[in-house]
């Protein structure tokens, strides 16, 4: 509405009412965008837009779950893909909402900052002519002289930390307090921007990666060593901290009693690290909730499991595959699933797929796992032979491509299932070779991340909280007292105006009146 103001310098008879030129259009758009109503709607849109990302697995949060979801929903997945539902918080439409919100915030806050700066030194406004028109007002008659009442009012308001108007005249007092409220409000909104800057810094320049390490296997910090790696879009791999580390010992405290018996209570990885090649070696006890900080990079222990050491000999008697193979836990009892691949086996490739039981037990013919501690390890595997299809691009080490293999059957025509305990060797049928389960070792999953700007973000949120409390709990209020001497005594008019909303002005007013009427208790 504000944009349709009259413009006497441009007599343009051909303009229809409501027609805007470019400048007016821009102004109108700006006014609309920076209005409180728009900010409110944008806030609600932001809340609404965040919903789908919590219901559909996100690629950048959990890529495995996300791809599983896509496989399970073949109709919806392509549509969702186009809409960016698998990466909501990085999508253009989500960005559009918060960018508009930031613009709206700036458009609101910058002018208010100038207004505040000017108002900071301003005097409280003079008393309105008719105090009784204000919603909260009171008056009483007294025999005291006007001067006495005014003096007491000044002292009282000053004591209550009001700012008094200097040239208020001899018949009235103008007072105002709560200047810090608007400051808190401004600080809060500006701090939101600080948080965004910190968050953006981390997202753009940081990285997050993870690696599964067999106990004793060294790791040095460069891209090739990671199992998965999510860099920020402006991340520079050359700037990575040149540290290296090795997990020497991994300890688990097992629960033996209670409802969670068989599960782990605490784990710690005893590791040695060097901050850079040539630096002295240090050691650290890495535990959940206790990350290790090396330079700007942090190491977290976030998971563990078992890696059976399996040796596959092929039909020619040569070792085709040997070493620890991490199996992935299916639950807290570390009952795990995994595959072993021998692509170099002759005459045909061999693939094993199956489960690892840390504490195997046979309950009436049903195999069960009694807990996570490896007191009775058992490896139970199906055997596949043929082409493992490993030449067709990258393949997960945790899954077997079964498109070109056949499952190996025994003489009785049933599928072969190998059940191996440590040290045991089984010959495969048809002269395929043999499989040995040598022993079991543990693996640890170490998450490594570099998040620049996190201190900026934290500072921003703390500032925002302080500003928020200022803007919510500091009361911004004006009080006027006017006296008029008449033939039968002095009439005192008092009015209070709450500028913050949500205050009980009447209560404040009655307290003031009571204090003014009782000179001995004026403080």
């Amino acid at each position, binding site marked *: 509405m504000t944009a349709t103001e009259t413009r006497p310098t441009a007599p343009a008879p051909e303009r229809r009412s409501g027609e805007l030129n470019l400048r007016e259009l821009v102004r109108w758009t700006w006014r609309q965008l920076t209005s409180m109503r728009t900010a409110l709607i944008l806030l*609600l849109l932001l809340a609404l837009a965040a919903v789908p990302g919590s219901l559909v697995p996100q690629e950048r949060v959990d890529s495995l779950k996300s791809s599983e979801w896509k496989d399970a929903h073949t109709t919806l997945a392509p549509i969702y893909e186009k809409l960016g539902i698998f990466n909501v918080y990085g999508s253009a439409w989500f960005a559009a909402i918060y960018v508009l919100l930031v613009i709206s915030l700036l458009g609101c806050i910058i002018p208010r900052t100038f207004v505040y700066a000017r108002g900071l030194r301003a005097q409280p406004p003079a008393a309105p002519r008719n105090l009784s028109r204000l919603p909260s007002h009171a008056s009483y008659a007294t025999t005291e002289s006007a001067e006495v009442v005014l003096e007491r009012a000044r002292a009282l308001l000053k004591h209550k930390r009001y700012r008094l108007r200097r040239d208020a005249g001899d018949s009235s007092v103008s007072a105002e307090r709560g200047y810090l409220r608007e400051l808190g409000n401004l600080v809060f909104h500006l701090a939101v921007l600080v948080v965004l800057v910190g968050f953006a810094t981390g997202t753009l320049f940081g990285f997050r990666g993870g690696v599964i390490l067999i106990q004793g296997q060294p790791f040095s910090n460069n891209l090739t060593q990671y199992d998965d790696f999510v860099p920020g879009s402006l991340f520079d791999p050359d700037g990575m901290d040149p540290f290296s580390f090795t997990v020497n010992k991994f300890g688990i405290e097992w629960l033996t009693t209670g409802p969670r018996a068989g599960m782990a209570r605490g784990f710690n990885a005893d590791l040695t690290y060097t901050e850079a090649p040539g630096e002295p070696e240090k050691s650290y006890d890495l535990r959940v909730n206790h*990350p290790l900080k090396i330079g700007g990079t942090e190491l977290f222990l976030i998971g563990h499991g078992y890696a059976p050491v399996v040796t596959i000999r092929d039909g020619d008697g040569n070792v085709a595959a040997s070493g620890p193979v991490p199996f992935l836990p299916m639950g807290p009892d570390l009952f795990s699933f995994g595959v072993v691949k021998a692509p170099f086996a002759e005459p045909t490739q061999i693939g094993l797929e199956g489960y690892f039981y840390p504490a195997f037990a046979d309950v009436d013919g049903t195999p069960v796992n009694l807990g996570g501690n490896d007191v009775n390890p058992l490896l139970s595997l199906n055997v596949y032979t043929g082409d493992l299809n490993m030449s067709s691009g990258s393949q997960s080490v945790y899954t077997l491509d079964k498109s070109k293999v056949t499952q190996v059957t025994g003489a009785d025509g049933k599928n072969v299932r190998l059940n191996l305990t440590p040290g045991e060797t089984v010959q495969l049928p048809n002269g395929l070779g043999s499989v040995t389960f040598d022993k079991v070792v543990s693996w640890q999953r170490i998450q490594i991340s570099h*998040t620049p700007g996190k201190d900026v973000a934290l500072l921003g949120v703390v500032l925002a909280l302080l500003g928020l409390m200022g803007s919510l709990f500091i009361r911004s209020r004006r009080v006027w007292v006017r006296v008029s001497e008449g033939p039968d005594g002095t009439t005192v008019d008092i009015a209070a105006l709450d500028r913050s909303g949500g205050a009980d002005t009447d209560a404040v007013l009655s307290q003031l009146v009571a204090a003014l009427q009782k000179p001995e208790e004026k403080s």
Partner: protein
Amino acid sequence: MTDAGWATLSNQAVAAAAVVYFLALLAHVVEWASLRQVDRTKVLVGAGAPVDAPVAPAGAEVEKHEDRVAMFGRLGLLLTGIAAAIHFVALVGRGMSADPNRVPWGNMYEFTLAGTFVVAAFYLVMSRRYALSWLGPVVVTFVLTLLMVAVVWLYDPTGPLPEALNSYWLVIHVVSAITATGAFTLGGMTSVTYLLKRRRGDKPDTGLWARVPSLDKLDLISYRIHAFGFPIWTFAVLITGPIWAHQAWSSYWNWDPKEVWAFITWVVYAAYLHARTTAGWRGRNAAVLALVGTLTLWFNFIGINYFSTSSQHSYAGAPALPDSSASLSGK
């Protein structure tokens, strides 16, 4: 006392608290039921029944009646206080029954137990200052219902904390989150009351509605409760949550479903606070927003656990993973 003894004590205390809450509810129902009768008497007297009718005895009867109403109101409040005390014993017992002893909020059952206690405690603390006694039946019904939900659906025998929860941030983060939840829940109740009363109009009311404060007063109470809860929620969700998430999961903001919904709740309440100062949004719309906020809050507390399986707040699901090692993404 043995751990099992503490666990039994806790379970019995929950049952006892539920019974006493129920008695409190009965007292409030009697109070409200009697209120209706008072009106009828008042109307009869006011309409000037037969002139020769003895007015004084009727007046005395009304007074007696009002006394009875007030008595039942006080009884309801007293019973709520006793129930909350037993409720507190249940919480302490729960914490003592774990080995090692710990704060009693490590799984959904315990969160619900603690959350409902905070709602009851807030109501008791504020009922005097803000004259909230009219809210008694609503609070008691709410607490009772959630306690039943906790016992029937969420019960979990006491166990030690999963490793990721084993941090002092559990105390700071969860206490602030539960405190804010308690405040927002009460705020939701006053906002519902505001909306219901608004439909009737703010006319001089009789009966039940006479006890409820005026629309302006209701709006003010709602605002104050929310203004109290919002900074605490900010502290819980945007300060302690990220700090802890960073320590445990290596990233301070993971867009985890719980985090997302906590953020949604935060944004909705931020919108509520803005709405109260925006023309055209004051009053009704602001109250609706506050209500939406309460719904997102409780959806996040319980509902999201049944919709999303990828949350790292793993205490929520029944077969909880001790860590996120199952969500590996191998290349």
